[in-house]
């Protein structure tokens, strides 16, 4: 891969803080434009300065409001620069999406210290979009101190955000007791910090205890992650939450856990890229899709296992023919 003048210029503009150039580079990434992969090879070595925080939780937990409140807090407390990636689902039917997170972040829209980008999942199912990590890289290149990655409203199994961030915050709200029951196996195990939002509502304290109980059941001898109560609307508890987030990251930077997690995250990104390429290789380029249709239309077995084995054999034979197996 060679980096062209056009890519180099755009990357230089992003590095010097040009938000419009960053927005354009993000569009390349979202469209899987080959120019992004080429540009990325040129700037990847300089990444890793930004702190990446994942904000996840069920629909209605107040993720967007909390993101806005955290941004406002950090802008006034230490003026750090921020990037926000807000992911909403694409319709599986039309492919379209309504990206509404900005409505709750309108107070940030004129602050050049906060860059907000809305993303549609475009068919991804893990709570983020395929290109979310790439867009976080662009915000890192843009020099943002802290990046907040807000997932779609999640259920139990959308835990991709854990493999995309340095720290994952699970936001819950009073009345979500049943949600915790349902989440015990997935997200409840994955988060590094639990936020009980809407602490101005009754039952917030009870939720804190329910979370603590659920964590005690699950964690065994692992250290129990903090549970923090906030009200994103009134601002109560926000300074404590912001401090806790910074402190957790400082500790993990010092003891090496952050570096290990980032290495794991990068490996997981590489695996996803290879997976996607292998799928295209098999189903499109090696023609397995056509093969499948032929075999199912013809006489013979209808065992899915036998069909799969047959397709894999055909794929390997074709790869061997081309001499690359």
């Amino acid at each position, binding site marked *: 891969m060679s980096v062209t003048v056009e890519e180099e210029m755009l990357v230089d503009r992003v590095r010097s803080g040009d938000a419009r150039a960053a927005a354009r580079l993000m569009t390349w990434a*979202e469209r899987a434009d080959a120019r992004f992969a080429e540009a990325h090879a040129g700037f990847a070595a300089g990444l890793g300065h930004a702190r990446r925080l994942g904000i996840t939780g069920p629909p209605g937990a107040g993720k967007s409001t909390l993101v806005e409140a955290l941004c406002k807090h950090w802008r006034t407390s230490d003026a750090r620069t921020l990037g926000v990636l807000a992911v909403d689902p*694409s319709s599986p039917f*039309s492919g379209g999406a*309504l*990206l509404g997170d900005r409505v709750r972040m*309108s107070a940030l829209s*004129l602050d050049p210290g906060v860059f907000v980008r809305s993303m*549609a999942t475009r068919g991804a199912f893990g709570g983020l979009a395929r290109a979310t990590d790439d867009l976080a890289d662009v915000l890192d290149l843009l020099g943002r101190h802290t990046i907040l990655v807000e997932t779609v409203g999640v259920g139990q199994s959308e835990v991709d955000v854990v493999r995309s961030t340095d720290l994952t915050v699970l936001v819950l709200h009073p009345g979500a007791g049943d949600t915790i029951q349902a989440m015990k196996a997935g997200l409840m195990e994955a988060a590094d910090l639990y936020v009980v939002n809407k602490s101005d509502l009754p039952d917030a304290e009870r939720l804190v205890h329910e979370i603590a109980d659920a964590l005690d059941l699950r964690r065994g001898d692992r250290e129990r992650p903090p549970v923090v109560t906030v009200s994103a609307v009134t601002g109560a508890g926000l300074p404590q939450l912001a401090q806790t987030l910074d402190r957790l990251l400082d500790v993990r930077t010092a003891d090496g856990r952050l570096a290990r997690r980032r290495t794991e995250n990068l490996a997981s990104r590489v695996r996803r890229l290879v997976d996607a390429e292998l799928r295209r290789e098999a189903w499109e380029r090696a023609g397995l899709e056509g093969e499948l249709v032929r075999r199912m239309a013809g006489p013979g077995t209808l065992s899915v296992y036998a069909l799969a084995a047959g397709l894999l054999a055909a794929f390997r034979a074709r790869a061997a023919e081309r001499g690359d197996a």
Partner: protein
Amino acid sequence: MQPPIRVLVAKPGLDGHDRGAKVVAAALRDAGMEVVYGGLHATPEAIVEMALQEDVEVVGLSILSGAHMTLFPKVRRLLDEAGADDVLLTGGGIIPKADMDALARSGVGRLFGPGASLDELATYIRGEVERRRSAARSA
């Protein structure tokens, strides 16, 4: 496959009637577009900042307050000044035909009045974006 069209739908000005903007946002989503909803009471400056960060190809404004002769040209000018002169600016509201014609002459795209068809709006946007994309490809 063509990447989805990204549109910012916002409602500048002081009136709080956002039903039209929401109906349009939902219709464009159903037409396969990614619609960033910018909400109520956005200033022209905030709208342009959102459009730049989101790198949208289209900005759609709903204006029912009568301030269209100020707001559309201002957003157009700010977009152009930011180098986003390739972004289509369109929208709708209660806008007299003569005003629509005058705005069209000042670089604002087609505007849609009450009773306009949502399909027509989606078709118009798709056509304009396709034209701009192929112009950019051959540039």
